[in-house]
């Protein structure tokens, strides 16, 4: 009996200790560390104002912060917080000068007539967070560090397109390209290195690979300054008092690393995070119920089908444009968006949907199975042997459809199989893990080596730039070109000519005209069939105010963000 009483007391003690250690169920307003543990409803007037700390949730931890050393999206999006781009992009994808006085153009003399020389005029008031002026020397240094063989930078692109970068005076940067480079606006000067901090490191160690600044950039040029990074846990940034576009309204950005998607959703619901991203469509309704605002931001990703059109290895049916058009008409992508994606997105007309590069008059192919059947009949694909699948010259209209193992992609495969069967096309479904699926021709990747007749995924390159080498005839992978990127093996002479032309058009307006032609050809010949627009989905908690998010540089207006307490 005595023992039982002891156990009972022990259990009660543990429960009480747990409850005592729980936080009070008050509003998220918490007193600063010095304040007493018991919150008071009316703070005394002498109490200092509560610091505004916004908590962002990242599902992946950045590897390093130095922009030259990372390809990670979660690292690059921090650059609008603590580093600076020469210009970033607003929520309409319009370039917004940050370090330069204005965007270079042919009219203002910033771009030479032959398109090879671009001159940047820097603002007079730009300074690093330690007060040192930002000058053209920082640009030259950044270029030199990227190209130095002693530094293991993630990519030398696009700086390897440059012949030289010069600094005729502290406020002028002159870039000379080997040949006109159309993608300069979307790809250059994503982050700047402070020469006065890193040059001594390079001179002493012969490399900046191991510089402390790579992970602890205490000198920056963004609205916030790096303060602390605890591996696997958090990264803190505090307001930069010297920021030339004004002090941010928020005092501190606390980035919490939460790798699990379900935990991220729980944290957002519980108010333990003010901002999250990579939210699944299925979580949107419950988050909205919890008062979290969901924001869709297009960053160039459109999910779609690629058709393997290799002249020798491709399926004969797919080489006929009428068959591809029939597939577009027979697949009810509108229902897929409505039923499988909760009506939160819609089918894109082309690969470049939601960018200025798509011809705005284009509309997605409608759902019209009867017209699809007519087109297949016209193309000579009929069910002659009564097995329910069309055939021609002894070849059955059976197509292998491959995609990754992602849940939503598997679901779409099943729906597509049913819908295409109704017009006499049989789909055989295959799935592969991403590391295998995205393998190159040299690595035996199933898409690149033509193992699938149709393959499905979404990608984008250098958003908001439309430049892509995926469509050039010379990029068709082969034994001689195992790294070729044109996996669908499409080779259309007119398309090839236009893609080559746009790559040299430094003037965005001219380039846009070319791209409208490109998008129309890709649409009409159904070289790519859009399934759903795949925006980045951000969850913005109820405390955050003035939030605008852009696809290319999400936190472009973070200086204006505020936090209601």
């Amino acid at each position, binding site marked *: 009996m005595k023992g039982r009483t002891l156990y009972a007391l022990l259990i009660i003690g543990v429960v009480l200790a747990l409850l005592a250690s729980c*936080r009070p169920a008050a509003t998220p307003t918490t007193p600063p560390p010095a304040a007493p543990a018991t919150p008071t409803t009316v703070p005394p007037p002498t109490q200092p104002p509560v610091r505004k700390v916004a908590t962002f949730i990242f599902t992946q931890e950045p590897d390093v912060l130095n922009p030259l050393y990372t*390809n990670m999206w979660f690292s690059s999006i921090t650059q609008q917080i603590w580093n600076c781009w020469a210009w970033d992009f607003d929520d309409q994808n319009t370039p917004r000068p940050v370090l330069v006085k204005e965007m270079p153009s042919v009219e203002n003399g910033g771009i030479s007539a032959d398109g090879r020389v671009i001159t940047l005029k820097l603002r007079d008031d730009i300074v690093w967070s330690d007060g040192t002026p930002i000058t053209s020397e920082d640009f030259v240094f950044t270029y030199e560090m990227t190209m130095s*063989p002693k530094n*293991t930078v993630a*990519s*030398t692109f696009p700086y390897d397109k440059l012949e030289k970068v010069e600094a005729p005076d502290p406020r002028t940067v002159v870039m000379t390209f080997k040949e006109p480079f159309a993608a300069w606006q979307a790809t250059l000067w994503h982050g700047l290195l402070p020469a006065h901090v890193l040059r001594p490191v390079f001179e002493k160690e*012969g490399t900046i690979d*191991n510089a402390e600044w790579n992970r602890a950039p205490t000198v920056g040029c963004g609205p916030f300054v790096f303060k602390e990074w605890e591996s696997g*846990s958090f990264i803190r940034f505090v307001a930069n008092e010297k920021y030339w576009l004004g002090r941010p309204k928020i005092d501190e950005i606390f980035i919490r690393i939460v790798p699990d998607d379900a*935990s991220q959703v729980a944290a957002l619901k519980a108010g333990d995070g003010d901002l999250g991203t990579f939210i699944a469509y299925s979580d949107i309704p419950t988050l909205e119920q919890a008062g979290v605002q969901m924001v869709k931001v297009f960053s160039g990703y459109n999910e779609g089908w690629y058709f393997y059109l290799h002249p020798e290895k491709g399926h004969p049916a797919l080489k006929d444009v009428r068959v591809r058009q029939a597939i577009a008409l027979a697949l009810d992508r509108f229902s897929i968006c409505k039923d499988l994606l909760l009506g939160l997105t819609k089918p894109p007309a082309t690969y470049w949907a939601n960018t200025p590069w798509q011809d705005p008059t284009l509309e997605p192919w409608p759902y019209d199975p009867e017209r699809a059947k007519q087109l297949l009949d016209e193309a000579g694909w009929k069910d002659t042997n009564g097995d329910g699948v069309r055939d021609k010259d002894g070849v059955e209209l059976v197509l292998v459809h491959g995609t990754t193992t992602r849940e939503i992609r598997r679901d779409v495969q099943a729906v597509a199989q049913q819908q295409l069967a109704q017009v006499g096309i049989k789909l055989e479904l295959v799935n592969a893990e991403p590391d295998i699926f995205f393998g190159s021709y040299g690595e035996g990747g199933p898409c690149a080596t033509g193992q699938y007749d149709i393959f499905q995924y979404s990608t984008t390159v250098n958003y908001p730039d439309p430049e892509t080498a995926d469509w050039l005839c010379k990029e068709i992978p082969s034994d001689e070109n195992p790294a070729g990127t044109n996996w669908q093996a499409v080779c259309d002479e007119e398309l090839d000519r236009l893609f080559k032309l746009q790559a040299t058009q430094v003037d965005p307006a001219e380039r846009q005209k070319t791209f409208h032609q490109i998008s129309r050809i890709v649409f009409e010949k159904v070289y790519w069939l859009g399934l759903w627009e795949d925006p980045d989905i951000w969850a913005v908690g109820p405390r955050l105010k003035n939030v605008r998010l852009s696809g290319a540089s999400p936190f472009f207006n973070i200086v204006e963000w505020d936090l209601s307490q």
Partner: protein
Amino acid sequence: MTVTLKVTVTSPNVTVTSPTPPPMLRYIIRRLLQAIPLLFIISVILFLLMQNMGDPLATLGGRQVTRSEDRQRLARQLGLDKPIYIQYLYWLIGNDWTKMDLDGDGIPETPGRRKGVLRGDFGISLVSKRPVVEVIWDRLPNTLLLMGTTELVIIIGALVIGMYSALRQYSVLDHLITAISFIGYSMPIFFIALLSMYIFSVNFKRWGLPYLPTVGMFDPQVGKTPGQVALHMVLPVFSLSFIYFAAYSRYVRSAMLEVLSQDYIRTARAKGLPRPTIIFIHALKNASLPLVTVVGLDLPFLLAGAIVTERIFAWPGMGRLFIDHVSRGDTPVVMGILMMIAVAVVVFQILTDIVYAWLDPRIRYD
């Protein structure tokens, strides 16, 4: 592992006689010497296996495939284009005795900088560009804090529950505890972790009850105080303990039942010794042997952390470090973690043997 058991014919008694130091010391030295070739073989096997864990340069963690020009350049600069045995050699003894070709002109011109594992240099992480020792050292205290607390909770809980179940065998509470611990044992950790998070954090807050935090180690508004860290540990420790209670408490229960039926316990009772002395001094000590075996085997793996729990509760421990770096093919960090665990297994096995001898004087290491 060669353990020679010398069992004496005398009945177990309650007095402890320490093994003579020289044989024990000789045993420890012998075991440590045996560990050297063992660790070497382990390192070779692990290094070979890591080469099949994916290409660290394939995407560099980004959304796009790395350009082939960058891939070739990085492979050259990082020495990943060298044959596997050369890469292993550099990992083991360093490359500061040779020169590297960084600019791709075919002429090695830059002296290597790595000293190699044998000289205490575990290399630089391919992901974070930091020394491996620093990368691991950042996470180890967090893991030890979480896993140490969990292990302590499990051991104390298992002893309390196991002993209670043994002493009150087939009572209602024994059945209840057994049922609950088996429910925990049968549940996947992610389920209990997410369930507890939704109940005690999300829903408790919604219902206006005192609630626990969901993720992380502290509330940024308050700061990293010991109280905050303790508060954030409640749910992960609870989730981890809940699933391990069953196994541990069953070991204690069965061992206690066996010991309690021994003659010497009856003798102790007959002598009129107080009940707590019989249970805690005479019975528990002898019943602890199976638990020591399990704990001894488990301890080195505490260093490895708990992958799922750390991921769900965003606890910055070794488990997440391991999985993050394996997914990026970061050989230096993964090798560092695995070799640390291998060394820990060897050391803890020796310690377990020592504790064995202390607990059971019948065991001798000759």
